């Protein structure tokens, strides 16, 4: 009997408590895995310096970020793309990120034209020898529909050309890199924050993959700043309604920490010589 009573009590408490719990000083963020490293690192840094907030950060993809912040399941939604059709969401832009087209290193191709890239992802070109590389079958690796990276890539490269789905689909920036590294002939797209690492004052490509130039423009920080390299986007963090005290505090912390932003492969607004409408 007493156990049943306890359970009833627990269930009652469970139903009544959300109001109480939301007063707790915890923040949750979810969304873009391109932005994840920055927010995660910022959260760790913030919590090392301050003791007033518990911050949980998780990925899922840009659309997960937008959907879940709109549903109030999380406090902050990270996204590579604009949240169109969500009037309640307030945009906080954090930085800019570039996206590399990355391949398995064994294909012997360093550069492709935008048209060739379209044909590869549309499934029209299926072997690397057709773009001057080794005789290796092309394996296209996509991100799922919830991915903002995929949205940015389709927007800036593919236009109206539909993406072929017959290759693999990988959940996140990290898995894309792992899959490209281990799959001969693989090609995919991922944020600089995943494809590059900052060592000795400059960026290098992470081991086991190669980055392609597009129309002889290399995927570098400088080419993004000048607008020569096409695949980049603003990184957004959305709040549901105007940011509250805790949210503002953490957002300000992220935006102010230019050292972290730069080290992780992101680009500061002040370094941009073009803006999004120029594209």
């Amino acid at each position: 009997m007493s156990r049943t009573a306890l359970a009833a009590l627990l269930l009652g408490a469970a139903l009544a408590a959300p109001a109480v719990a939301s007063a707790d000083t915890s923040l949750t963020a979810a969304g873009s895995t391109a932005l994840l490293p920055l927010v995660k690192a910022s959260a760790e840094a913030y919590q090392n310096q301050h003791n007033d907030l518990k911050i949980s950060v998780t990925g899922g993809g840009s659309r997960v970020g937008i959907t879940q912040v709109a549903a109030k399941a999380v406090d902050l939604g990270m996204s590579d793309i604009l949240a169109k059709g969500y009037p309640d969401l307030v945009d906080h832009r954090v930085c800019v990120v570039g996206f590399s087209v990355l391949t398995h290193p064994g294909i012997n191709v360093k550069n492709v034209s935008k048209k060739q890239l379209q044909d590869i992802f549309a499934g029209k070109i299926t072997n690397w020898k057709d773009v001057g590389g080794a005789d290796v079958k092309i394996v296209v690796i996509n991100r799922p529909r919830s991915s903002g990276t995929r949205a940015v890539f389709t927007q800036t490269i593919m236009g109206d050309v539909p993406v072929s789905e017959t290759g693999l689909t990988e959940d996140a920036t990290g898995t894309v890199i792992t899959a490209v590294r281990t799959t001969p002939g693989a090609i995919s797209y991922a944020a600089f924050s995943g494809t590059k690492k900052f060592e000795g004052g400059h960026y290098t490509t992470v081991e086991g993959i190669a980055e392609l130039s597009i129309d002889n423009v290399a995927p570098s920080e400088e080419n993004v700043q000048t607008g020569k390299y096409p695949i980049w986007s603003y990184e957004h963090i959305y709040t549901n309604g105007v940011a509250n005290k805790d949210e503002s505090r953490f957002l300000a912390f992220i935006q102010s920490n230019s050292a972290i932003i730069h080290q992780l492969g992101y680009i500061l607004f002040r370094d941009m010589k073009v803006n999004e409408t120029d594209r």
Partner: protein
Amino acid sequence: MTNVRAAGKAHRTERLALIVLRGASGFFIVSIALLIGYLAVEGTKLFTVDHKSIFEFLFSPTFAPDQGHIGALAFILGSLFVTAFAIAVGGPFGVAVGVFFAELAPKRVASAMKPAIEVLVGIPSVVYGWLGLTLLVPLIRNTTGSTGFGLLAAGIVLSLMILPTVVSLSEDAMRVVPDSLREGSLALGATRWETIWRVLLPAASSGIGVAVILGIARAIGETLAIQLVLGNAPVIPAGLLSPASALTSEIVMDMGGAAQGSLLQHSLFSMAFLLLLIAMGLIVLVKLVARKAA
């Protein structure tokens, strides 16, 4: 002598207990009714609110909700293929091992081996998936030159996962066959194998049928073990070695990012509802098979 107060208290307790017990039992009915009702409403919005055709959902291979295409055929076929593979491999194997435990295994061998099989049931599906990912996928990639991800990897992982279910249920089915049949057959000069093959298996057929159906139920609902090794391409797979998707893996890939009321969300709900219908259909099938036996 009768302690009137104690008796009165006992009666109140009795009544209260009955109310609590009945309430707890009712909780089951309420839960499943809510679940079915909720999924039925949300799962048909694709057709009632978005006015999409149910034929497109079931028979079109093009799934791109952002462009208005909601064909789930690729996922349905993916689910059916991996399940069929798992049953084709894990089913006979499971029944054979179940027969072994019921008819052949010496007591000491059985008591040593059965706990091992029971452990297989308890291993989380994500661990199976992890093993598939780290062991099976590279193995397939290196031997076939494909990506390694796909139906074959998922099918093998699933075969292993349904094995314990099929083993223990078919063993039970064999054990309820009366000894008189066994003795009767052996007394007529049949060998042990002939007895198993011609007498016991037919007698246990409906129980074994139930074992296989419940194996199917476990396979069709499995999510992460196959999501990790399937490759998750939302297309009808060209072969055993090409990447594919299943209903469950598609739901887990896209559920977090499906906006409230979007075509994508409604499609996912329709898939979930379809899965629920399949699962309940299998339960009804189990009941029919069991009744036929009785």
